[in-house]
């Protein structure tokens, strides 16, 4: 039985989305494997529209009977809802970009033994090279997704993709000093995940972290690493390029398309097909063709991200950025893989030229930033003090400011980039900002 056809008995338009996820993972804790897991989840979402009233049902199943029942419940919800006069319809048939995406299907058959061994080797090496280090947490594993989006206007798109991941969270304890947790990670679209880069980076930072220094300054040049940069931008900048906010006039970027907003060194785009992306979708969660959307080009604001609802209202159309929440079944607006274009200077050289400044690996409290204004007040931790071109110790300080001011003050961008999957998918370089105001927390 064609479920879409069945749904059309109840709705003017209907969309059925089925998400399947399989993951194998190994968690580590206290220098050993804590747990190994295999989880599978299938979720179906029915989103229908009757007389411009929306009704949604989400169920942990892809069973035909459950989906039929779900269609009927969604129809009742639509009946209870109110008319949305601005609704213009679900998207129609799409032409999807013929992109060549290398999928490594061998990921799906990786055994937990492979990830246990990866974690074991990493922990052995860390403990061998630093007797004061404790692997407090971490994980390795793979995730594989199969998503199918269908609607009554002819969309029927099935996509699958996945990736492997490995991260460790290490704490050092020497004398009275307990270091902050030092994190590093690797995420790949294939099965060639290794421990070396993660282990080396953590051990290097741990050595600096034992030497706690007071910040002793109220202003400085600050090099922000990819994870910290992503933490800040996902909570301050990404909401501002959401098209819904443009329509509602609640973003500082409303009516500023074409204006220079940031330093001309800053180019930001959403690119699901970037070589490092682990989210290489050809369609968004409404089935609209995904694409590479430039958001800032050399500091100039090029445009907002849209799903079909707000894109239709604005007249700009969807940019293929409809993202579904599986907690509500609703479609919001988001990035598939947010990229800040890398620069052309080695990170080591950037550090080498800093006479006095700081390196920030992560922020505490980026989620408490104000998405409406871009204001933030966060704690840099782990953070490191740089003197005469060398890292000399760790420190903790507060950094308060506004993302629109910060991104005007870009001094350098590194020629390396890192895949980020926390908060959202992205690829970020390191960026050096000049004359940033801070308040010391470490004494």
């Amino acid at each position, binding site marked *: 039985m064609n479920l879409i056809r069945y749904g059309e008995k109840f709705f003017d338009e209907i969309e059925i989305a089925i998400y399947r996820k399989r993951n194998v993972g190994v968690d580590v804790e206290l220098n050993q494997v804590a747990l190994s897991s295999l989880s599978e989840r299938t979720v179906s979402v029915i989103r229908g529209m009757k007389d411009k009233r929306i009704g949604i049902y989400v169920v942990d199943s892809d069973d035909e009977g459950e989906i039929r029942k779900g269609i009927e419940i969604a129809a009742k*919800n639509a009946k209870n809802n109110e008319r949305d006069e601005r609704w213009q319809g679900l998207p129609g048939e799409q032409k999807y970009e013929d992109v060549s995406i290398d999928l490594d299907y061998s990921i799906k058959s990786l055994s937990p033994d492979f990830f246990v061994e990866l974690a074991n080797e990493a922990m052995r090496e860390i403990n061998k090279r630093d007797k004061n280090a404790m692997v407090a947490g971490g994980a390795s594993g793979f995730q594989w997704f199969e998503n199918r989006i269908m609607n009554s206007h002819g969309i029927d798109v099935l996509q699958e993709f996945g990736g492997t991941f490995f991260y460790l969270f290490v704490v050092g304890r020497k004398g009275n000093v307990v270091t902050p947790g030092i994190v590093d990670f690797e995420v790949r679209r294939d099965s060639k995940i290794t421990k070396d880069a993660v282990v080396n980076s953590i051990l290097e930072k741990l050595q600096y972290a034992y030497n706690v220094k007071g910040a002793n300054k109220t202003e400085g040049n600050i090099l922000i690493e990819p994870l910290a940069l992503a933490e800040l931008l996902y909570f301050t900048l990404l909401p501002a390029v959401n098209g819904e906010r443009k329509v509602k006039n609640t973003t500082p970027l409303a009516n500023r398309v074409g204006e220079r907003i940031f330093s001309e060194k800053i180019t930001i785009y959403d690119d699901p097909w970037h070589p490092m992306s682990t989210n290489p979708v050809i369609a968004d969660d409404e089935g609209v063709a995904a694409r590479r959307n430039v958001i800032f080009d050399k500091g100039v604001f090029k445009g907002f991200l849209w799903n079909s609802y707000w894109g239709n209202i604005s007249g700009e159309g969807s940019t293929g950025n409809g993202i579904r929440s599986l907690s509500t079944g609703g479609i919001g607006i988001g990035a598939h893989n947010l990229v800040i274009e890398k620069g052309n200077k080695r990170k080591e050289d950037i550090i080498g030229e800093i006479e006095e400044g700081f390196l920030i690996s992560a922020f505490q409290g980026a989620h408490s930033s104000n998405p409406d204004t871009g204001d933030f007040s966060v704690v840099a931790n782990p953070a490191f003090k740089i003197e005469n071109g060398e890292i000399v110790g760790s420190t*903790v300080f507060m950094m308060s400011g506004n993302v629109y001011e910060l991104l005007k003050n870009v001094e350098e961008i590194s020629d390396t980039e890192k895949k980020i999957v926390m908060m959202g998918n992205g690829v970020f370089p390191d960026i050096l900002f000049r004359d940033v105001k801070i308040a010391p927390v470490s004494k």
Partner: protein
Amino acid sequence: MDVEDVIKWAEKNIEAEYIEIRGEEISKMNIELKDGIFPTFTSLKLSGFGVRVLAKGAWGFSSTNRFEKLKESIENAYKMAKAASYGRYEEVELADIKIVEDEVRSKMKIKPTQVDVDEKVERMKDLEKKLKEAKEVASTQIRYEDASGKKILYTSEGTRIVWDMDYVWQYIWLTGKNEKGFASARDEIGSVDVGWELFQEEDVDTIANRMMKKLRAQLNGVQPKRGEYPIVAGPIMVGIIAHEALGHLAEADLTINSPFRDLIGKKIAPEFVSMSDRIVENGFGNNVYDDEGTKVRDVHIIKNGILTEIMLNREYAAKFGMEPNGHARAENYMVPPIIRMRNTVFEKGDYSFEELLEGIKFGYYVVDFRGGQAELNSSFQVGVQEGYIIRNGEIAESIRDTSISGIAIEALKHISAVGKDFGLEMGRCGKGQTAFVSSGGPHMRFDKGIVVGGQQ
């Protein structure tokens, strides 16, 4: 075949030290009202099983949302445990608990399923209308969610617990605009013990007035001066400091890597300071048993200034040589239980609010928060969404877009007075998984140890 038959089958056929099946079947209603439109009007049915197996001294976990695959899931969890055992140098041991067979019934007077959808919708519309009466409000987002269903825990040790799983929850995000620019405010309420009757106490006017106070404080606020100043924190801020700065360090899986590890039994705060994770009236983290079947009991984290107890699951209780105290919680069947807080509160003292302000020439009064985060070196950060300057012992102008930070074990030493009032805040904590929690306490004064972030 039912879950009882499956666990009996597993006991016979799986060579494990311990097998645990957690099952859920929960129906939810999720409605979102954004600026006059309900873009999500959703029913959800969440059902499935999470299986944890302890074999060869290691944990394996598997989950499925199909009952017919439950046996396979147990076999998978066993295979996972065997794989994990190659990564361990010591075997996992579980502290003993009293094995119970029990049913935990909802205390709600009016379960959300007994309330007509139209009434839920009308209440949200009334609330939005009330909020939009204020000329500063540029955009409103109101999310309502309720849940009703059952949760079970069956273990190879004989634990059989069936819970009613009900809650109501509401989240509001308000964006405001005036001549100074944009500002925003959030508000969150919820309960697992109080049902629809929650919204009789938290009526439209109460919520709207509270929201507008926060929004106006932000809209009209001045940028604070960054630096270390005396702080008087209200119950909601005191609660989030209890939660972020201290509570996380007292979760045994984090304690073990934090400064708290070596401080148990030692004085870490003035003797008039006590802090607990305990059952409180209408606490969002209340329960009778945790997700390992351990009876939940009060944990006196700081008693008269001494770091006394930490929060434990069965594994960490064995590791620390202590008794489990009911803090193993899982967000849902898809994830294994981990150590979590429930309701983390500072206990009352005997100062009036006016006495707390006395003698402060310049400082800050922080009332409500927007997010917070802690680190293992006891550094904490809490975003401030409602705060004021204290000038010459009196509350003066409001401040905007700031946060406070400190090193918790240092800041604790500088608590100089504890108020005689008490307040509680409902929220969610993210530690890889989301958990409903409460936090609160009385007003408190920190003379030093807390840094205020600011663009001045």
